[in-house]
């Protein structure tokens, strides 16, 4: 199976449709990155809040014992 382009310049030009093709693939990239980043951020936020909640509860227990 041959490569359909003679040079790298040819490849980027996409026979005059370069802007359309590369813009589409860039948007696809953005959509993929969004999905990966969004789920990772959500996970990090959960653990941050959960740890804070845990510390608060421990402090409360401690206070109720000492007072």
């Amino acid at each position, binding site marked *: 199976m041959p490569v359909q382009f003679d040079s790298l310049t040819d490849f980027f030009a996409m026979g005059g449709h370069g802007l359309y093709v590369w813009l589409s693939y860039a*948007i696809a990239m953005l959509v993929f990155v969004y999905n990966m980043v969004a789920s990772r951020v959500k996970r990090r936020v959960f653990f941050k809040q959960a740890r804070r909640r845990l510390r608060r509860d421990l402090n409360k227990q401690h206070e109720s014992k000492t007072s």
Partner: protein
Amino acid sequence: MKFKLPLWFYQLASPKWFYELSGKLLPGFGWAALLLLTVGTVWGLAFAPPDYQQGNSFRIIYIHVPGAILAQSCYMLMAVAGLVGLVWKIKMAHVVAKCCAPIGASMAVLALTTGAIWGKPTWGAWWVWDARLTSMLILLFLYLGVIALTEAYENEASGDKAAAVLALVGVVNIPIIKYSVEWWNTLHQPATFKLTEKPAMPPEMWQPLLVMILGFYCFFAAALLSRARTEVLTRERRAAWVVTLVEEGG
């Protein structure tokens, strides 16, 4: 309802069991997606022959079609999960439905924008109000509606139910998208893949498309599991196993 579901279904409905299993499956889907998408993209961009009419702009198909297919499959999964949640009161089903919505919405955006970009050199217009494009836009709005409803209630269960009902009503849009190119005169070309017929394209063109579609599905599986895991933790935050997990530092 008396109908009983198989045992694995109830196991899957256990949040802890789901969390452990999904943790094992996630890397596999992630790597498969990376491999398939890399191979498919290089194949589609550099090795597939240009279209005799559209030239190289046709290479947009390798992200446009998988994005559109996934946007619809994801919707069906969301609606079925919503139904399971409503009928059998399974909490995990609502978690899946909720996590489908943003992923599906992003895929609908991908299909719509790449379609617009493809339309410009092919039809001479970014957008036309024809049946396929309009029904796809409605799909995006349905996703946004589901996301908004899920978040709209103070009570989580009420949001889940309202979102599930909207998702189910919106299923009527799916056959409209599918058959829009047959029922109405349209600029949009008919489906590339049909179950009953050979593709109208030569194999050198549809083979990379198939690889890309599989890659999109694997990515979807990974993204869905990843989101669902965090959602499960959030909803089960008071359960002993989640507290232990947090203590151990996640």
